Structure formats: C-alpha cells, structure tokens
C-alpha cells in the first residue's frame, strides 16, 4: 500500500540516462508470456493500493501493482465484480499486468474485456514523464485513447502506474448447464445460443462437453434453464439432456486461472483468437474452446508459420501463449505496414527503447 511513482520515475530517468534497459515486473505471474525478458527488473508490485472506489459510480481506481485479489475482495463487499474475470495465475496477478497483457476470462464476450472496461490510466513513458489519459468517467473522447492502446502492449509503450476501471454489479444468480457434444457441433451450438436474447454469460467446450453459463435475474435464469435443458430434439444435442453442473463456480474459476487438467504439462499452449463460428483448425490433438467459439486453445508442437495460416483461415490471429520456443516470435506475425507503424508508435512513447526490449516482438 504505497505510492512509489516518484521512485519508479527516478529509476526510469536514470536507466534512460545510462542507456540501460528495463524489464517491468508486476506480480511476476505472467513471466511465461511474450518472448524471453531482458533488461534490469523494474518492480512495480510495491506501487499498490486502491486509490478510490465508488460503488455508486461503478468506478474503481487502483495503483498498477495492486493484486487482483485485493480488488476482488473490495468489490465483493459491495456485491460488485471485475466483469472481465481476469485470470489470477497463481494469485500474484496485478491490475497493471492484467491490462498490459489484456487478460480476460470466460465472460469476456458478454461482460467485456479488461480493455473494454478501462476508463483511464496513468503512465510513465520512456522519457520518464508521468502522464494521465482518459479519466474516471464512463465516456471520454478527448484525445486519443491511450488507455486502451496499452491493452496487449505488454509494457512496450510505458509503465502503467494507475488504472481506472468500470466495474459491474454481480449477477443475482448463476447456473451452468452441461451437454455431451462433439467439437464440430459445439461451435455451431454456442453461436446459436449466443444469438438468442438470453442471459448467457459463458460458453466453453472441453472433452466432448459443452458448458453454458447463465447469469442474471433469478426469473430470467430459471426460465432459460428449463427452456434449454429439454428443448433440443432434432438439434445436434438430441440424445444429450442438459444437466446442471454442481459447484460450477470452481469450474469457471479453474478455466479462468488455467488450472484445469487441460492446461497441465509442458506441451506448448497455443491461443487462437478467431471468428466465433470458424470451422476448427484442422489439427489433431487436444482443443479447448472458450468465449463462445472466439478463443480456442491447442496443446502441441507446431510451427508459427503453420499456425499463422490456420488462424488467418479462421479469420483471426494466433499466439504461442505458454511453453515452446520463446526466443522466436510468439505473437501472430504482423503485416509489414503495421509492423512499421507499431515501431513508430513505440518510438513516440519510448524513443530510447528503455522498456521491455523484444518482449512483445523480436523487432520491438
């Protein structure tokens, strides 16, 4: 619980003066992400604490090093939540790292991503200037949206020191239905359900089971449950009766935090962010489908070039999320024009390349 912004600023200024590089570290829960880190550690975890939280305004502001667990505890008391369900990755994850890595959980297609919910940031750029963008209000279109630009930048544009977020009330009731469904049918079915005006809040497929989560007002959840449970003769679900999942909260938490058995072991973990209806990439092996079809996980060795081709055919992008060769590029290759543009943007924030060299891309 301390404001260390001045100290962090000094560290950046002196690194810049001595032409040293810095490796920004929050809770160190996502060290496995991106390419191998280089540079001297710049530790942000001490820069922590909730700066303001007004439940009636649905706005929370916290220093970047604040652990998600602390935010969730404060929100719990007011029956509110981080609607983007960020993964805790062992409990150490901070709000700054969550934004920098753009990490959102199962509810993302329905409840927004961390990027969607960010209202403003404070940021130390590579010149050591402490800047404020966006704000603590829901709508703000003055200037470029530098706050949301940070999502996925993995610290390459600067050190996020403070984040303001829109938070949401918790749903009154949550229930999960499970069906026995094969992969091909699951994708179609998830999308069909998502096109209905029902309180769907997560849709995932794993091990020939389809999980549909319903959240909202009790009457709405109950009514939808009974409609969806029985009603599927003639659909790909015929033969499978929907059943209620006991202790569904721990299932969704394990999916969010990647502690399900699917995520165990050393095999490379690939993340496809693709069109929700895309035919699943033709790659035999172990798949997990989340986000109603828009996020698909694959375990196994493959070349980036091959994966790139599959992702583009499916209308999206791929990244090597965990494991494998992390000296090579792990993010979807960028078109030449976009690569140059991002290098120029990087320069506009961090002209000397102080922050996280090569972490996001080998060329940045």
């Amino acid at each position, binding site marked *: 619980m301390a404001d260390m912004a001045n100290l962090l600023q000094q560290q950046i200024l002196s690194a810049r003066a001595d032409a040293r590089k810095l490796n920004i570290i929050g809770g160190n829960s996502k060290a496995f992400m991106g390419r191998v880190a280089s540079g001297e550690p710049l530790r942000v975890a001490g820069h922590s604490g909730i700066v303001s939280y007004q439940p009636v*305004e649905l706005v929370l502001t916290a220093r970047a090093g604040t652990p998600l667990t602390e935010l969730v505890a404060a929100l719990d008391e007011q029956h509110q939540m981080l609607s983007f369900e960020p993964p805790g990755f062992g409990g150490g994850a901070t709000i700054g790292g969550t934004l920098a890595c753009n990490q959102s959980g199962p509810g993302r297609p329905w409840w927004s991503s961390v990027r969607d919910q960010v209202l403003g940031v404070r940021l130390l750029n590579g010149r050591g200037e402490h800047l404020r963008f966006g704000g603590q209000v829901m*709508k703000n279109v003055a200037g470029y949206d*530098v706050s949301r630009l940070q999502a996925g930048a993995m610290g390459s544009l600067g050190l996020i020191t403070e984040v303001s977020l829109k938070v949401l009330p918790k749903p009154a009731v949550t229930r999960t239905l499970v069906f026995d469904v094969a992969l091909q049918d699951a994708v179609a079915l998830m999308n069909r359900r998502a096109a209905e*005006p029902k*309180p769907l809040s997560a849709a995932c497929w794993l091990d020939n089971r389809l999980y549909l989560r319903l959240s909202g007002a009790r009457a709405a959840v109950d009514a939808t449950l009974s409609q969806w449970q029985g009603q599927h003769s003639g659909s790909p679900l015929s033969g499978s009766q929907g059943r209620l999942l006991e202790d569904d909260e721990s299932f969704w938490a394990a999916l969010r935090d990647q502690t399900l058995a699917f995520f165990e072991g050393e095999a490379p973990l690939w993340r496809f962010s693709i069109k929700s209806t895309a035919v699943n990439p033709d790659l035999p092996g172990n798949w997990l489908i989340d986000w109603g079809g828009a996020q698909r996980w694959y375990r196994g060795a493959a070349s980036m070039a091959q994966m790139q081709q599959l992702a583009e055919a499916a209308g999206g992008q791929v990244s090597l999320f965990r494991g494998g060769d992390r000296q090579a590029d792990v993010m979807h290759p960028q078109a030449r024009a976009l690569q140059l*543009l*991002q*290098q120029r943007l990087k320069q506009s924030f961090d002209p000397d390349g102080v922050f996280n060299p090569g972490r996001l891309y080998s060329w940045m």
Partner: protein
Amino acid sequence: MTEKSKPDKARLVQLFRSFISPEYVIEDAETQRPYECDGLSMYCEMPLIVVLPDTVEQVQRVLQICHQHSVPVVARGAGTGLCAGAMPHAEGVVLSLAKFNQIISIDPLARTARVQPGVRNLAITEAAAEHGLYYGPDPSSQIACTIGGNVAENSGGVHCLKYGLTVHNILSVEMLSVAGEKLSIGSQGLDSCGMDLMALITGSEGLLGIVTEVTVKLLPQPEKAQVVMAAFDSVQKAGDAVGGIISRGIIPGGLEMMDTHAIRAAEDFAKAGYPRGAEALLLCEVDGTAEEVQEHIAQVESLFAAFGATSIRSSQSEAERALLWKGRKSAFPAVGRISPDYYCMDGTIPRGQLAHVLTEMQRMSDEYQLRVANVFHAGDGNLHPLILFDANVPGEFEKTEEFGGRILELCVEVGGCITGEHGVGIEKIRQMPIQFNEQELLQFNAIKHAFDPAGTLNPGKGVPTLRHCQEYRALETRPMPASTSDTGAA
C-alpha cells in the same frame, strides 16, 4: 524525391477528374456550399475541392496525390458531427465517403456485419432486424450519421451504459494511411496480438487515417423492453434515484434525465405526456428476457417511489414506449423551437457531482443572461447542456461560447472531461489544455506524427499542435523509422 510544391486548384481538379467522374469532383462554390460545415454550423469554411470517390482505389489515389503535394484532407461522413470535426480546410480537399453506402455482408450466426464507411448507423440495425439482431450504439442522429463518422468520434447513444460505445462494438477496420497505404486493423476475433490499435483508431477524428470498411458486432434483439418515466421535484432527488438503481445492481438499457426547461420544450414538441411542472424527469429503460424485465421494472418503480418521485408511469405497450422516448430523442430540435439558436455542450462528470454542477450552471446562466436546458445521459454521467441564444444579436454567440467553455472547465474541475461523445474537432481544441498538460499533449502529437508525419490529415482538429513540438522532436535521440511511403522500406 517527392515533389512537395503545391499545385494549383485547376491542376488538382484535373488530376482527380482523370479517375473520378467529373461531377464528383466539385470545384464551384455553389455546389460546395453544403460541405462548408458539419452539424455545428457556427464554424464554417469553404474547401478548395470536394471529391466523392466510390471505390477504395479512387480514395487511395486521392490520398496519394494529396500526400505528394502536401494538400490537407478532411474526411466526411454525413456531416452530423457536433465539434466541427468535418469542417473543411480552406486549402484542402474534402473527402466524402457518402458513396460508400453498401452493407457488404451480414453473418447472422457470427453476429457481425461488414459495412462500408458511408452506411448510416440505423441502416445496419434495419438490415440486421430480419435476423433478430441489431447494432448497439444508437446516437440520436442515427437516421443520418454514418458508421465511418461513428468510428471517428467513438459515438455513443442512450443505450451505451449497458451496450457500450462504438469502441466496444466493432471488430475490425480497413483503413488507408495518409499516404494511401492499406492497413487492416483488428480481426474477426475479439482481440488481436499486441497493442490495441483498434482502440487508438476509434475516436481519432479522422486524424490518423481514412476508414474504408468496418466490421461491427451485432446483438440479439432483447425479448422485451419497457420504460419507466418518473418525475421529481428536485434534480438532487432524481440524481440520487439514479445512484439508487445502480447500487441495487440493475444496469438499465437506458437511463436519461431532463431538467425542467428540456421537459417543457420536449413536451410541447412531442406531446409525450411529460409532467410540465416537474423539476427533473427520469426515463429508465429495462430490457432483457420477459421474466427479467418484469422483475426489474417492479424494482425500479418501487425505488423511484422510495426516492420521492412525484409521479411514475411505466410503458404498457410498444407504442407507449416509443412515445416516451420520442420526447427525449427529439429534445434537441424541441429546444431549437423555443430559441432562435442553441449550442450543445458535451461534458462528462462523475454522477455524484450532478446537483453541484447543475447549481453552478444555473449561477453562470444568470451571470451570462443566457438560458440553459439540460439533457443528460444520467447513467454514464454524460451531460448535454443546451445554451439558448440568438446569433443575430451581436456578440451573443461569443458570450455563449465563453459560457460553454466555462461549463467544460467545471466538468474537468469535478473530475470529468470536456467531451463524452461529440469529440474535440475545432470546437473544443481550446479546452484541451484544461484536461491535459503539455507533456500529455506532446504525447498526442507524437502519436499523430507516427501516423501522419506531415500533419495533412484533418489538420487543426482534435489535438492542439504545440508550437515547440518540432523542437521537442528534434531532441529525440534516434530518428523515427520512416514510413514505407517515404522510403519504400525501413
């Protein structure tokens, strides 16, 4: 070497007419007149030339020519913007995207639509309706405004508390850089690798590139929607009631407030049955499944009663719901009838500051001797004070502008911002330094430079260019990587 000398108007017209049909290269003042301003007609300028291309290749060639000759380019959708963002540049080309009005495809299962930038906002919802889908953001100007303009302004609407702004409802854009280079940003997935360029482009007011195609998300039409209207005898009570609903865990589809001047004007105009004597009126729309709406409407009604509403009415039919909204949606033209002119402001404030801000505004209204009517996207704190004035009275517009500027300062003072959804354009450029310090403005300038080094895309709008910005850049230790257009490759 590129040729940087400026060709004269006749030469440019000739160049454009070699690939755009002559009537769509407009050079005479009379035909150009409709382009001299956007929805903020107090700011006018005649352009050098107006072009209306109808293929991406033509747009590309226009950009290449303008880039080569350092001619400013101002993109234009429907011209409904309220910040003079689409106001022409006297030495520049207005690039109208009006002819790009095709919905390319709708994918009902994936719930997406690919559209050209000149497609009207409402046209997307109308086309999606047969699939039980609609496009979320619904600016009051949705009959006319284009999706390209919406992306450029990150437009919102009465439903954005629950369904988000433009930035939350688009997946990808096809864009042309200032040099006419094609850029594909975003994808059909929900996110892309690396820094979020989609967010940077959304709301960039035509300063970073020309949007030539947009893929939007579509939402399932709710089973049911119902609106509750509640009248209050003080703004404070109405504001507290808004907080009460949110605290109760209900996120309404729309939550709008009007003050007494706006209520009367809207009622005289739309005959929606608004209580003319009320100090504040709330419209709270709840949508969702039939069961959910029933449950929430009952809660909202009892909350309004508990917060001291003097009258409460819930719509009992679609017709009644439409009527209750009609008053709100026509509030601007309604106010236009009670005054020769009005000036619409667009600040956002933390909701808790509402009563304070309205009291201060009334004080200033007395000071300037100018009436103010207020409509308010109450759920998300976006305030639209409408200052009533008469442009024919010498000096009155200047007085109005000064008053408006002070309202925006007040918004920033209480922790809000100078524009919630209308954008900065030319209009609010003087207020930018109130919200941002010099270093922040320089960072904005540096971003602009990364996209448009010569600064020919919509110059003079959005972000003030600081005088010593050039010197600042000269201090950079390394040169910027050149854009492909400058050198071919880097």
